[in-house]
């Protein structure tokens, strides 16, 4: 049977300075563009210059966020690497397509091909950390991180003495956002960070980032919180019922929650799902949003977990993220619920 897993460290690279010590969403970096690239930390602080030059953005973001998580957890080695990435190393994929379309038949540079594979971030972590253990990459659209989280729960139930490096990473491409725009995914009017959550305009703000965690079955003085359960569903007819059943299966009533994190991203076509929940199931809870400050990408839900751990630590919800006026005495148990474009629903239950 699955048991809760404890998180001992976390690291986050995003379009906010989340990698800076002490930063906790009290001040937001604003943008009026779409897509929005992630802020670059001083990668050289953790990655030797020679290695850094050869790494694409997914690899460097994943490695840096992992090092932050390991530093916070106070560990120097891990036993397994479990990652999620909706689109893998997108820019190198584009680059190799561009090369082969232009010069098929001539001798193509293999580097973008090698670094295009979806498992390259997890591979770079294994290589850089010398981890010969279990290594997995989930590519399940907007539920990629959730699959990695579920696998971590199973893996640690199987290997109760081990420590897992768990995370999600997605990078922006150059041509691909144009395709998304054609497909109608992207926001034009009101394309801002923080994104207005007023249900007025369609579309999402494309962004990128990497969020990594150190997880094990052992509680320690360094523990930031624990994940009790995660569930995903491609399509859900009735989100309130889906969430209520999940809570029931885990023996938790809505009253026992202290707050809920919701995946509102300003896409008027789908944010109504959260509004309905906010007016019914979660009416009496503090409701917290995050995608309006971090943008939208397949593994951004990992940032919600990062934020929940921060809320536990600070015992405070940043005003910039609050959707309603309800306050809570304690902040011990938080539910994360997200979906993207009306599908890939997920729920994650987290406790301090």
């Amino acid at each position: 049977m699955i048991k809760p897993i404890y998180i001992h460290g976390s690291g986050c690279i995003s379009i906010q300075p989340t990698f800076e010590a002490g930063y906790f969403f009290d001040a937001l970096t604003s943008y009026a563009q779409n897509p929005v690239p992630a802020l670059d930390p001083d990668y050289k602080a953790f990655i030797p210059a020679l290695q850094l030059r050869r790494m694409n953005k997914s690899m460097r973001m994943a490695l840096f966020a992992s090092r932050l998580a390991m530093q916070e957890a106070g560990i120097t080695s891990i036993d397994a690497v479990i990652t999620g990435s909706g689109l893998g190393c997108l820019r190198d994929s584009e680059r190799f397509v561009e090369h082969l379309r232009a010069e098929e038949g001539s001798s193509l540079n293999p580097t973008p091909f090698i670094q295009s594979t979806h498992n390259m971030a997890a591979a770079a972590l294994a290589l850089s950390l010398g981890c010969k253990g279990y290594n997995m990459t989930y590519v399940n659209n907007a539920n990629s991180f959730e699959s990695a989280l579920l696998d971590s729960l199973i893996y640690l139930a199987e290997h109760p003495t081990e420590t897992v490096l768990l995370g999600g990473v997605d990078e922006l491409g150059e041509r691909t956002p144009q395709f998304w725009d054609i497909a109608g995914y992207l926001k034009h009017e009101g394309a801002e960070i923080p994104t207005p959550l007023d249900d007025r305009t369609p579309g999402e703000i494309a962004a990128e980032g990497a969020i990594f965690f150190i997880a094990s079955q052992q509680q320690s003085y360094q523990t930031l919180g624990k994940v009790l359960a995660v569930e995903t569903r491609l399509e859900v007819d009735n989100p309130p019922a889906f969430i209520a059943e999940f809570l029931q299966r885990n023996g938790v009533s809505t009253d026992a929650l202290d707050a809920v994190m919701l995946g509102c991203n300003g896409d008027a076509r789908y944010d109504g799902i959260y509004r309905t929940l906010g007016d019914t199931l979660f009416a009496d809870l503090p409701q917290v949003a995050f995608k309006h400050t971090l943008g939208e990408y397949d593994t951004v839900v990992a940032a919600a977990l990062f934020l929940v751990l921060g809320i536990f630590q600070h015992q405070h919800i940043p005003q910039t993220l609050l959707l309603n006026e309800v306050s809570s005495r304690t902040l011990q148990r938080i539910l994360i619920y997200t979906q993207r474009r009306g599908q890939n629903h997920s729920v994650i239950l987290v406790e301090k």
Partner: protein
Amino acid sequence: MIPTAPIAITGMGAISAIGNHVTENFRSLVASKHGIGPITQLDTYHRGRLLVGEIPIGNAELYDRLHLSPEVACTRSTLLALLAAKEAMEAAAFQPGDGYRTGLISATTVGGMDATEQYYDDYLISEKHQPFIQTHPCGYAAEQMGRYLGISDFVTTISTACSSAANAIMLGARMIRAGLLDRVLVGGTDCLSRFTINGFNSLMIYTDSHCRPFDENRNGLNLGEAAAYLVLEAAEVAKRRGKSPIAYLTGYGNANDAFHQTASSDNGEGAYLAMRKALETARLNPTDIDYVNAHGTATPNNDLAEGNALLRIYGSASALPTFSSTKAFTGHTLAAAGAIEAVFSLLALQHQVVFPNLNFSQPIASLGIIPQTELREKKIAHVLSNSFGFGGNCSTLLFSKDHD
């Protein structure tokens, strides 16, 4: 530790260059009839130059066979996957929604890249192919499969290069053992694409002829396309519904070589660890294995590393069990390889035969190991199947006629 409930395999389906279903694949294997030839479907510079393991059916005909409307955007990997998955489900004889929690775990590396590479500029100027934009992410195929097949309790996609399908099969077993699912359709799919053909060619590990796994003079791989799926069930569930299993999945192991982005370490550390772990989960000794279906891509690097890893497990060339690579039949089918070779391993168990390693003539001098080159009838209780990929991802599956 999670209790090791037996995992029954109650259905399988496969489409590859040597057959459109499992029986056709088996007939080709026993007749030593390979499927490697010139490119006829894919529009590429390498047509008439490189040899591939292509499935000689166009996409339009695949749409027809699946009764799909031409309006639906479906890339070749998904079309192949649906055919193999349907065969597996029909063999297992279950209906989704029968009260058992049923999942789908699929593997792919190509995803919708065959559409993206073709319409890369076209998308910007013409509406015609724009419905294919959404097919690009690797996760799209499994979601489309889930909808088509009616499987919705759990759907996910794995991409760990050429070990992807082995990892999908492994996750399925682990989810059943963890009590999260009763039954799961697992496997992988990859169609041929210009992206992968040019990629392996640019790495100079694409042979100019037919691949020669484990041969001293091997000079690279042929790519192939395939899809294969298995139905895994808690043995108890299969028993309750009166379904006798084809065989059991008794062991699995996943490790990372942590050596180089693409190359394997010479001593095959990752491969060695994956095989060790698979034997440990099955609680078997190396000597219990009757046949090894090797990864054997016929690249100089893979076969040397895998051979060394086998020698480390067994101690000497003479102690190795019968082994062969079936890549010379199908080509290297990337994310589908672990699944198509799982089907071949199950056929070996079912029919008590070892399939030949084609195109072999001279053993690798530094290893001295010799694969099985002719079809051989043999008592087989346990088969080990290897799948290794870029990024050091190594996985091993262990299939058994019975469980303990």
